[in-house]
């Protein structure tokens, strides 16, 4: 259940990585270097033997700090395709930050992260890391859907407009086809009758379901949920969890940061308890919830259950 059996990364490696990133940042025209590595780069993650496609997400000693505040102090995790991983833990434990690192909304300060076999945000050539350009990071994010605590729907677009926005604007797909798919997605989340409603006219639960449909419209390989029900009235939590459960049954790979222990037990394939920027305990949800080993886990679960 503890994470000690995972391969630890040599400290020197991490520091190299940080240096390389620093170098790329300080060179205003780091483009040259990045372009030079274009040819050799794409296969590196897999050739290193670390990002084998058997894992949808693989985190290795991930560190993140905001200024002096260390938020993530070495996270090692793997998520297999089709797996639903739930992440629980007290506020400030770094769960959300870790989630945001996965689609590079936050830059890592150390360690490595692969999604679907590709290193996130950087290109590796030999021992050096090269920062990706904004455009390339954006391309990586297309395969990762994200659902936020505060929904973050675009308030000036209808529900349908929200779902259609990314496929039309990012993938450049024809509107008619996107519309068809968007309608189907809204039906799937049970909102066929709310297509023309603006987010302000929808309840929180409905908004969050639109947000899930919006993320699914890009046909992601991985879905990230950042406390998707924390901002909802208690009576609306169920409808969102139901949609997520359906999604899990359809085989979507999901990482869910949540306080819904019941959902974690019922739907999750694995459960991770984080505290103080590290993974304290992980395992099958039933085991962790019913028989927590670490005192911190026991303490946390006794308070929320």
């Amino acid at each position, binding site marked *: 259940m503890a994470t000690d059996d995972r391969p630890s990364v040599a400290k020197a490696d991490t520091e190299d990585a940080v240096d390389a990133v620093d170098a790329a940042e300080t060179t205003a025209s780091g483009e040259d270097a990045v372009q030079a590595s274009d040819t050799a780069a794409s296969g590196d993650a897999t050739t290193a033997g670390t990002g084998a496609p058997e894992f949808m997400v693989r985190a290795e000693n991930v560190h993140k700090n905001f200024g002096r505040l260390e938020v993530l102090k070495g996270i090692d995790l793997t998520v297999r395709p089709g797996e639903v991983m739930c992440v629980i833990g007290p506020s400030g434990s770094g769960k959300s930050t870790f989630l945001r690192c996965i*689609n590079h*909304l936050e830059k890592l300060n150390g360690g490595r992260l692969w999604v679907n076999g590709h290193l996130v945000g950087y290109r590796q050539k030999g021992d050096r890391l090269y920062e990706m350009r*904004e*455009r390339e990071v*954006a*391309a*990586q*994010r*297309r395969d*990762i*859907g*994200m659902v*936020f605590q*505060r929904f*973050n*729907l*675009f*308030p*000036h*677009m*209808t529900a349908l407009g929200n779902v259609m*926005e*990314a496929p039309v*604007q*990012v993938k450049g797909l024809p509107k008619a086809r996107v519309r068809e798919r968007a309608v189907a997605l809204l039906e799937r989340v049970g909102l066929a009758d709310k297509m023309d409603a*603006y*987010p*302000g006219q929808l309840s929180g639960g409905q908004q969050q379901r639109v*947000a899930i449909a*919006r*993320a699914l419209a*890009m046909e992601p390989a991985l879905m990230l949920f950042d406390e998707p029900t924390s901002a909802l009235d208690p009576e609306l939590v169920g409808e969102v969890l139901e949609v997520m459960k359906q999604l899990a049954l359809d085989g979507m790979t999901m990482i869910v940061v949540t306080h819904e222990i019941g959902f974690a037990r019922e739907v999750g394939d694995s459960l991770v308890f984080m505290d103080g920027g590290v993974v304290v305990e992980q395992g099958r949800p039933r085991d962790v919830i019913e028989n927590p080993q670490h005192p911190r886990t026991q303490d946390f679960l006794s308070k929320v259950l």
Partner: protein
Amino acid sequence: MTLTEEKTPRGRPAEIKAVPVRHYGRWIAAVLIAYVALWAIHSVANNERFGWDTINAWFWDGSILDGIVMTLELTVIAMLMGVAGGVVLAVMRLSPNPLISGVAWLYVWVFRGTPVLVQIILWFYVKALIPTFSLGIPFGPTFVHFNANDLITAFVAGCLGLGLNEAAYMSEIVRAGILSVDPGQSEAATALGMSRAKIMRRVVLPQAMRVIIPPTGNETISMLKTSSLVSVIALADLLYSVQIVYNRTYQTIPMLLVASIWYLVMTSILTVGQFYLERYFGRGTAQRQTMLERFVANLRIRGGRSA
């Protein structure tokens, strides 16, 4: 435990018909204000020194109408330059590239820090500073030459002075608008794989508009009147047109009143336009009403309270 179904149905109670509170103070105030207003209108209308005949005679005069056209042209062009320049400057100002944001800061510092009247005059006399303009590569060959005298007419100088100054003010308004948009919006768009430019154009700016439009309407109304400064470079706008007339006829006050009434008419029309623009960009957040509906609704609320 009782359930509502078990209770005997009582039906909807009759609408409460109570005698509303009488606001005697308001009635007295209304009478007093109406009395003072009538007196003011009466004394102005019957004061010969206002020169109502002169106002009437010149109100629709061709030279005045030409001046109005010029004022409107200047306002539209200056505001277009101001809005376009303001958006560019605001986006530059928020750029992560310190050089680009520095340039935008410098622009605002110069153009907001000097009087617009001075800027208009300087543009008019720019031919004294730079007699010829050339299109070409700096320090390299040139392709086209312009004589500043031909290029910078009074009209061009007026547009440049007003428009470039306005861009500095608009950039601050646009910047405030952009910063008012919830960062979660760009975050959600980023997570969907949208590029920075697309996020700005499709997600942030449309929402920033709600914050940008009201002060921009304000700026437009202000510009309509600020454009009268071009009279110093002898550009025949509304103010300059009436000045020409009263320099000849010495009917200074009536002619200035002609200009003032026209300015009032134009700002009133702009106010109506602003209402509809605000409603358009507030879609999804505010309920939709026409101006008349809102006016009637307000009257009802007032009426309900005081009747």
